């Protein structure tokens, strides 16, 4: 018996619960040279903004203990070129597609979402209200429950697809933000985005990122991410997507046990670009070994003291 990996989020069925994380797989073209994208539960694109953005000047990544800092700065082709140049490729991929949207004003989120509405192949939109790497916008929205609810409500007015709100860990009370997102009309929550951090070169006394600070990702942040998922699970009724330092199926299982219904894999793609495929295989073996029929049977089943 092969275990059932299918999960459903906001009425959309995914063949397995393993997705790529935004900003860690471009628009999928490179990963398609490593494995058929159809093996993914879903592909989540790099954040798309209204106008193209070059991002911050290099250096914009720095290696740290068990992780990395990045301040890419939402470099992307902009929504128009995304639709004209990238969508034809994505339309040929037999995978669920989630487009991540970022902006510096609420109106920008709304306009980008409006343009994505009519593209049939896009299954969901993920709203990046949690980017630590741009001065205006991004995290500013996700830091404040009022702004969170407002930006999501405005987007929901125009968007005819299910909406995922991507939450930041860089807040005092993530449950308050999660509830505000639910109040605003989000259908799913994904967490976490990167953890604010920095590193300094002690010879030159310069930060190792031109942006002076960045977002920490990779194995180093997994315990933080797990604790956030655990904190939000059961405190609001939305399904959760766990993100942060997921490197193999064991990490993914920990997130499911803490309440995540799906996971996204980011930094691990930089080490093994086929990491999601390995995780899906590992997950199947794990469930078989545990004689569990469906991945849905382990969600939120952590046996707490």
């Amino acid at each position, binding site marked *: 018996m092969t275990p059932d990996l299918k999960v459903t989020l906001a009425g959309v069925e995914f063949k397995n619960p393993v997705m790529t994380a935004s*900003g*860690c*797989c*471009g628009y999928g073209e*490179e*990963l*398609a*040279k*490593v*494995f*058929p994208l159809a093996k993914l539960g879903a592909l989540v694109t*790099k954040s798309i903004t209204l106008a193209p953005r*070059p*991002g911050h*000047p*290099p*250096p*914009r*990544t*720095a*290696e740290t203990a*068990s*992780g*990395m800092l*990045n301040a*890419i700065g939402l*470099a992307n082709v902009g929504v128009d070129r995304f639709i004209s140049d990238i969508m034809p490729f994505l339309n040929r991929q037999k995978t669920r597609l989630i487009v991540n949207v970022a902006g510096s004003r609420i109106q920008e989120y709304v306009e980008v979402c409006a343009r994505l509405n009519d593209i049939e192949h896009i299954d969901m939109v993920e709203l990046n209200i949690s980017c630590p790497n741009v001065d205006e916008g991004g995290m500013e929205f996700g830091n404040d429950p009022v702004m969170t609810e407002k930006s999501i409500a405005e987007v929901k007015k125009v968007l005819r697809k299910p909406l995922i709100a991507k939450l930041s860990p860089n807040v005092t009370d993530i449950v308050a933000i999660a509830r505000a997102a639910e109040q605003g009309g989000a259908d799913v929550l994904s967490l976490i985005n990167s953890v604010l951090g920095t590193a300094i070169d002690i010879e030159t006394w310069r930060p190792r990122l031109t942006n002076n600070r960045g977002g920490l990702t*990779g*194995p180093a942040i997994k315990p933080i991410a797990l604790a956030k998922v655990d904190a939000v699970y059961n405190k609001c009724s939305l399904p959760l997507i766990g993100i942060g330092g997921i490197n193999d199926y064991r990490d993914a299982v920990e997130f499911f046990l803490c309440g995540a219904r799906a996971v996204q894999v980011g*930094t691990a*793609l*930089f*080490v*093994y*670009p*086929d990491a999601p495929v390995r995780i899906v295989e590992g997950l199947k073996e794990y469930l078989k070994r545990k004689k569990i029929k469906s991945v849905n049977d382990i969600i939120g089943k952590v046996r707490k003291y």
Partner: protein
Amino acid sequence: MINISCEDTVLIKKRSLKNAYFSFTFGPYSRVDQCYPGNFIHLKLSETQIYFRRAMSVAGVNKKKKEIEIIFKVMGRGTELLSRFKPTDHVNILGPLGNTFTPPRKSERAVIIAGGIGFPPLMFFAGELVRNGYDPERIEFFYGGRTAADILERSRIKKLGVNFHPVTDDGSLGHRGLVTRMVEEYIKSHPDEKLRLYGCGPEAMLKATDSLGLKYSLPGQLSLEAPMPCGVGICLGCVVPLKAGGQARVCADGPVFEIGEVAL
């Protein structure tokens, strides 16, 4: 098309060169046939705590034995741990990655300009040109370093039959001075020859080579280095600005760029 893979392989030969440089040969590696000069591999130091891969340009392949060689210098914690690997230790190779050098036309003379740790891909390039029937007499191999100890694999390069021009800052081997200054002398004294430049080395050397190409209207290519988290074009961490505006990823759009292309 699926054409990038992760493959476990084993260190089979380790040579300690001078000055903290090492030559490592891994095998069997099934994709040696797809490795061309300019390409690099992304190496996972399995058996260590180092999480990210290390990019290494291909220094040579043995297609019959399915072996691949890299040459690296100990620069930080990753390369330091790698230098302690022993034969039979495992690594995982992601690759081959990146683009390749364009060979010179029959009518052109190849002027290779290597600096420091930039020589391995150029040595591979010169070797493959000769193997493919390009006259070694038409390859000028300039190689700059601080002292004689920085000019590695001399007999191996000379054995290719190329015209070898070592250049050192202190004059302890070959000409004394900057390698790009010697290259300029060469260009000036060969006004009637069609030359094509190939550079790989420290940033200042690349910049000077780029300027030479533009000043004397010579075509050519530069191979760049950058910190590379992913190596396959998905993290956007390795970008360089282009003179025409916009950016390029060193890993996926390079590492080899045309002279005049990158804002160095």
